[in-house]
């Protein structure tokens, strides 16, 4: 009791909503999911504790393949988003000034005023066989006739990158804005060339922003459901789709919960690995976002 000074009490009260939020909306459901994932249906409405759901995952190559495929494509999407966002972030942070800068920032935000569904359907309209882009390609003679650009893995990547680019851009812009221009000039003055300055000065400085953006994009793509389902082709499997299917159309909550936990584990491990490899600290990266 003697430790509960008014100051401490205030602190607890201030933290209470955040803690409640965490507990009610994040921790409790996960505990529930975890418990469901470790059981098995043995009869109508009867369940017993079991590792069957996890065993199924490792024994069934289909699930395993989908898992790996989702991870690999998310990684590719993350790397491509980084490569595409970097020049844009550089332009906004360092080249553009005043109104132009505000305008460019607004332009990157603009697509997010529409819902993700609308944005994804937009791609559908652009890329479909009778859509704008295939027709245009045929018109200017790149292809003999309109080609179906939808339903390829590349289409999914385009959609994933498009819907997550902003989350790469913002931390990158933040990181690059804090880079003192004189550092670049100094390096140039000391004999550095563009590539070397990029490698030795700009990227190390932006590293926490790069890590933050990559973590966000990676998690977003890994957990994306809509884009792979709408833009994906006949063979496109996405792990979240598998989770949805297990929960909703197979009525197999146990399997779905196990999949959800595996996905959580995968994203945690990959983020941890990424930070480890690039020598970043999680706290630093998160401060950038």
């Amino acid at each position, binding site marked *: 009791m003697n430790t509960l000074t008014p100051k401490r009490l205030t602190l607890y009260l201030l933290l209470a909503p955040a803690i409640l939020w965490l507990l009610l909306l994040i921790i409790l459901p996960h505990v529930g999911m975890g418990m469901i994932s470790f059981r098995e249906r043995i009869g109508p*409405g009867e369940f017993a504790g079991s590792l069957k759901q996890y065993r199924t995952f490792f024994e069934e190559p289909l699930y395993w393949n989908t898992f790996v495929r989702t991870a690999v494509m998310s990684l590719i999407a993350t790397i491509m988003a980084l490569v595409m966002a970097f020049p844009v972030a550089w332009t906004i942070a360092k080249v553009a000034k005043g109104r132009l800068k505000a305008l460019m920032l607004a332009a990157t935000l603009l697509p997010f005023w529409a819902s993700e569904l609308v944005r994804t359907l937009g791609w559908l309209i652009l890329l479909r066989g*009778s859509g704008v882009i295939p027709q245009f390609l045929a018109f200017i003679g790149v292809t003999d006739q309109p080609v179906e650009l939808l339903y390829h893995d590349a289409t999914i990547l385009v959609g994933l990158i498009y819907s997550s680019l902003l989350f790469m851009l913002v931390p990158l812009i933040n990181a690059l804005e804090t880079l003192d221009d004189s550092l670049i000039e100094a390096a140039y003055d000391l004999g550095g060339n563009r590539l070397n300055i990029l490698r030795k000065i700009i990227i190390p400085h932006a590293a926490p922003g790069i890590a933050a953006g990559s973590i966000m994009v990676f998690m977003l793509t890994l957990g994306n459901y809509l884009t792979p389902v709408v833009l994906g082709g*006949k*063979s496109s*499997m996405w792990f979240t789709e598998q989770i949805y299917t297990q929960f909703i*159309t*197979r009525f*197999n909550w146990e399997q779905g919960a196990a999949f959800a936990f595996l996905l959580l584990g995968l994203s945690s491990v990959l983020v941890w690995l990424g930070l480890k490899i690039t020598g970043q600290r999680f706290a630093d990266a998160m401060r950038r976002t």
Partner: protein
Amino acid sequence: MLNHKLKLSAGAVLAVFAFHAQADEQVLRLLTWADYAPQAVVDQFKKETGISVEVTLSNNEEMISKLRATGGAGYDLVNPSQDRITGPAKEFGIYQPIDLKKVKTANFIPSMLESTKKVTGLGGKVYGVPLFWGTDGLVVNSAKSKAADYSDLCKPEYAGKTAVRLKRPTLIGMAFSMGKDPFKAYANPKQYEAIMTAAGDKLISCKKNLKYFWESKDQLLNDIRNGEVVAAQMWDAGGWKLNTENATIKFIAPKSGALGWVDTFAIPSKAKNLDAAYKWINFISRPEIAAKVAKSAGSFTAIKGAENFMDEVMKKQLAESFPPAALKNIKWYPAIPAGLEEVDGKVLDKIKASN
């Protein structure tokens, strides 16, 4: 313990909704398919009974999932297909028996009512009464395709211009077109699995022929309209809708038989407003109302005399799609025993993952 927790939280959510409902007025919470509760009919119901209808749109799987999550609470009335009632009722306890004394059974076509009572019967009780029936078959652009059965979708001349749904009706239909009878095998899981695996393999070999596995009805209809798809597995209402716009597009019953489904009224086990649910059932089963809903849904009803109010175009389309032999050849879905969906799921996953 977990179930208890889930129930508790569901109860809390419900309490909020219930309070909201009671504070205002009488409300019927209806979980149904798109077009099954057109606004005009909802308005008329409100005028006659003072009960407003809160409509939630859904499909067979989601209906079960939603009710399962709450243990059968949150809605007063549902419109699941008749084959999807007894399984979940037994497994998850999400439905309660229908009190046939409260239903004006005289409004229903007797043969259909009897058949549904049989299919949705469990432990001597009835869990569903029929509302609409319809079929799964083929939508064909007759100018560009001569497809007459599901297996024709795999013919090379239609490469890249056909589509099916990656759902169990597709497997069932494909099995029938291969000369098998999956419905007879419902009672024999081993045999059923063999049939479905064979149908799955056929679809895998057919996969490169398909433009896509369609997800949204509108997407498919659009692609048929603009000629990107010339033949597809689809239900009748969609085919007739296109037929009305363009006579060369037809809905046809496949040679091996169209698949027949019946959508029903079923009452969730924890429905709050039973009175309103029965009122809605009896309201909809009035022939002139049933005809209105049928027009909106593009389906045929199980209500006696509704055809007198039906659109002539629809009657003609039905006659064109279903000559007497084809009508007789419709394969009606029997109730699905629990556990079969897992077999279907694995086969469907395999199709999706194959290259």
